[in-house]
């Protein structure tokens, strides 16, 4: 089979940097999928991207599909043959439909009787023809944000300007929004020209001559090398922020790193302000000395070469200086503020139209933090810190700086609180109460910070749910999922010995007494617990715990999350134990038989036990009752499990000898009562019926 290389390059107006990598991967996947669907073999596939292009090169692509022989089944023998044993109309129609002659038909035996079959040879199509379908491959691409342009109805990430589609030295003809394919590509917007791709395999080199580094990793490597060189020459450290590097990489086709300077007096600004101004607003890399102290320099990456680099440097310095002047003004104005007076202004900021002001929220958090301090078993000092933190944690929302740099909420609170003479623990806790800020972030490290953090987040979840703002599908505008995950993460980190369900009901109660309308508290509690159940489930799944193990421990009311996690990890490991199956079966059997017995009516009467096995089980039950809840409370999962495991032979003996469903009603009820009470204990650990046993 002969093979040839294929190039597809889509030239676009500058794509949003955050979409480039995903778009490149998507194009590669769609091309791969297409080739697989068309059963076209190839040796390798590689994708390229810059802000202005997405490209795929397929090397060693079959020039033609293989010929295949297909056998198709037609009508049954009775229908395919007429009374004379000649082919019927149905059979003739079938052969025509398949493009075959009557000679190609034959009757064959199948499992369902005899049928007529035809063998059709399918000639493979030319790849060059099939590749015209790249038109659909491209237009079916999807992006987080799509746009239209000119008078076209196509929605795409940005307007398309050229499409190079070359296979086996020929252009694959198709067009999208009046753009016809050709072998023409374009170089760097300012340093390159239009260029004909004469050799697909030399795509990368051809573009390099036009000042385009088409391979994203190669481009990234060039940026890192250039920055390293500046570090070395200047004796600096430039911490590599991968996210920023990725963004910068997708803002340039031909990178040249350079550095600039700002006045040393700006170093008086809080570090976070300087870093945010540089990174978030200008996409600069901040510069440090060898000890990690910020220096009044920055590194930026130009989309171009070394020519007139001094203009670029000067311009960027001017922009940063203007930004830092603004920030300095805000900082100095903010330092004049009094924290308590500023906090009072929160009464005038609407938190949500139906939920009152931020001031209202602060008052709820304060009350809730008091209650949670007990749950966290905070000492007196921690309670004090938590109370002060809860009272002033939101004051920085009315500062100039946070108004301008919203991402600095909490961080500025810490800085300003320290300057205003608040205790260091309080200042730190103010910042911490927003943590974890994102999926990979750590939770509040101090207990006081953690208390306020959980109180704030729980209040947000409860009050949002109370007015119907619940996440649905991909919609979660108030980031409630992240907040719930943050609560779980914080509770785990501090090994908080409190039931999550109780934390929820406390928040509902406090919201209610603070004027939030809650019609059906029990229902709200149930909804929120279910919401948390899903978060915990996802978190445990992410740590590699089996889904059935998770189901078994989440079957009942949510209690302490640290115990849940420990139990899940324990069972996950136990599942490999050979004795596990017997344990699960025995414990499940108890739960199963007790499932219709109401606990309120389940009165155990010792006198009604007839047989020894019953008495032994009853005594074992008493022992488990004495030990298991205490072990769970200590989060001592191994001991708790052991008490249950010790029950297994007793249970097995019991079922061997005893008919629970006795004809004697009194005996039966007494036995069911024992089962019910035992089942409650077992289920306080896990619902073993949910565990899937493999038949080994």
């Amino acid at each position, binding site marked *: 089979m002969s093979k040839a290389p294929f190039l597809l390059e889509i030239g676009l*107006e*500058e*794509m*949003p*940097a*955050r979409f480039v990598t995903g778009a490149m991967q998507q194009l590669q996947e769609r091309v791969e999928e297409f080739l697989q669907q068309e059963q076209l073999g190839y040796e390798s596939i590689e994708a390229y991207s810059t*802000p202005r292009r997405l490209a795929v090169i397929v090397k060693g692509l079959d020039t033609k599909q293989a010929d295949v022989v297909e056998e198709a089944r037609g009508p049954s023998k009775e229908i395919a043959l007429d009374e004379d044993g000649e082919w019927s109309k149905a059979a003739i129609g079938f052969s025509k439909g398949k493009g075959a002659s009557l000679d190609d038909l034959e009757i064959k035996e199948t499992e369902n009787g005899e049928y007529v079959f035809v063998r059709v040879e399918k000639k493979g199509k030319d790849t060059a023809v099939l590749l015209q379908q790249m038109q659909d491959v491209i237009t079916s691409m999807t992006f987080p*944000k799509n*746009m*239209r*342009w*000119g*008078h*076209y*109805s196509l929605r795409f990430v*940005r*307007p398309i*300007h050229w499409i190079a589609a070359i296979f086996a030295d020929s252009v694959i003809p198709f067009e999208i*929004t*009046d753009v016809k394919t050709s072998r023409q590509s374009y170089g760097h*917007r*300012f*340093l390159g020209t239009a260029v004909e791709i004469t050799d697909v395999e030399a795509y990368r080199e051809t573009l390099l001559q036009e000042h385009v580094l088409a391979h994203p990793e190669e481009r990234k490597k060039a940026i890192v090398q250039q920055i390293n060189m500046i570090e070395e020459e200047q004796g600096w450290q430039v911490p590599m922020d991968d996210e920023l590097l990725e963004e910068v990489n997708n*803002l*340039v086709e031909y990178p040249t790193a350079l550095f600039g300077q700002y006045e040393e007096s700006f170093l008086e600004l809080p570090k976070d302000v300087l870093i945010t101004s540089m990174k978030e607003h*200008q996409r600069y890399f901040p510069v440090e000395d060898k000890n990690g102290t910020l220096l009044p320099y920055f590194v*930026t990456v*130009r*989309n*171009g070469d070394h*020519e*007139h680099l001094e*203009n*670029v440097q*000067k*311009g*960027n310095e*001017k*922009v*940063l200086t*203007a930004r830092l*002047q*603004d920030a300095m003004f805000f900082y100095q104005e903010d330092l004049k503020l009094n924290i308590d007076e500023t906090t009072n202004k929160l009464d*005038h*900021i*609407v938190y949500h*139209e139906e939920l009152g002001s931020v001031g209202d929220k602060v008052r709820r958090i304060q009350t809730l933090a008091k209650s949670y301090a007990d749950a966290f078993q905070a000492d007196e000092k921690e309670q004090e810190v938590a109370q002060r933190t809860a009272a002033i944690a939101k004051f920085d929302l009315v500062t100039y700086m946070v108004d301008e740099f919203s991402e600095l909420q909490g961080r500025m609170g810490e800085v300003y609180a320290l300057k205003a003479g608040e205790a260091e623990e309080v200042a730190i806790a103010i910042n911490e109460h927003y943590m974890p800020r994102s999926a990979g972030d750590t939770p509040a490290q101090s207990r006081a910070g953690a208390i306020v953090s959980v109180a704030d987040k729980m209040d947000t979840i409860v009050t949002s749910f109370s007015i119907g703002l619940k996440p649905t599908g991909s919609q979660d505008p108030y980031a409630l999922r992240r907040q719930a995950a943050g609560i779980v993460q914080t509770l785990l980190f501090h090994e908080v010995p409190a039931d999550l369900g109780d934390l929820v009901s406390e928040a509902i109660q406090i919201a209610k007494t603070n004027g939030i309308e809650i019609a059906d508290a029990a229902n709200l509690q149930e909804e929120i617990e279910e919401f948390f159940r899903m978060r915990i489930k996802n978190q445990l799944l992410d740590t590699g715990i089996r889904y059935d193990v998770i189901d078994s421990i989440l079957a009942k009311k949510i209690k302490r999350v640290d115990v849940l996690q420990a139990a899940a990890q324990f069972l996950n490991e136990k599942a490999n134990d050979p004795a596990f199956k017997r344990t699960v079966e025995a414990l499940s059997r108890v739960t199963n038989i007790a499932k219709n017995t109401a606990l309120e009516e389940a009165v155990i009467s010792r006198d009604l036990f007839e047989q020894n096995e019953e008495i032994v089980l009853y005594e074992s039950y008493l022992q488990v009752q004495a030990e298991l809840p205490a072990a769970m409370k200590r989060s001592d999962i191994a001991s708790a499990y052991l008490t249950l495991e010790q029950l297994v032979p007793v249970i097995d003996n019991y079922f061997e000898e005893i008919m629970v469903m006795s004809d004697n009603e009194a005996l039966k009820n007494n036995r069911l009562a024992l089962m019910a009470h035992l089942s409650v204990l077992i289920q306080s650990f896990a619902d073993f019926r949910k565990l899937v046993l493999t038949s080994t």
Partner: protein
Amino acid sequence: MNVQDMILTLQNFWAKQNCLIMQAYDVEKGAGTLNPMTFLKSIGPEPWNVAYVEPSRRPADGRYGDNPNRLYQHHQFQVIMKPSPKNIQELYLQSLEELGINPKEHDIRFVEDNWEHPALSAWGLGWEVWLDGMEITQFTYFQQVGGLEAEPVSAEITYGIERLASYIQDTENVFDLEWVDGFTYGDVFYQPEYEHSKYTFELADHDMLFHSFEASEKEAKRALEENLVFPAYDYVLKCSHIFNLLDAGGAISVTERTGYITRVRNLARACAKAYYEERKRLDFPMLKDKEAACDE
């Protein structure tokens, strides 16, 4: 290059690209987009190419003439091309060259920035253009205007005249810009900057303004009932500016804010719809090649 020459250069350049050179509109507004030559004319299938300077009032940005960058009123140079031509980015870059900015000697980038104007029920996708790290232009492909799908799509280019001039003239303070030889920006605009700031933050009669808002809203509705789009739209602009004044003066709480924006938006949407209907009734007279306007 002084500010006046910059404006003349841009006008000449876009005139050569077959843009009608219009003048600023005589009702107060926060941005060139609100000029009916953009807001209304970007609606519907009729082609439309236009360029003009728009003095744009942002009461909240007033700084009594003390701040080197922030202004109560700044100037935008606005270009609209409908449908967006294929070479619109290249045209824009050429216009920078006309202003003496050679892209090879600078770092020019198109950085994602999506534009949304809730009170106009309008949004688009595009970029802010960076010149050596400074945002000098907003570049937008309108996707929706007044709640209507933009069909065809207009490209909007908004140059920030003061920003661009302070770069070209290498000044630290906007008031030092040379408007023409012998006249600085400060000579012309310092007094109004100071006075408008003082008025906005200290003197504005909020009761009077609230009444004006109500009255303008009512009048816009009345004009709309008679299908008089342009007069109605003038009153929508008045509502928008009065709202900005009240907002800057701290007279509108966050809760009320949404309500006022919604009221302006409803009017803007009604004007957009009425304008479209009226043009349709007239059989879109500026649509010369009716076949070509249909989608491919």
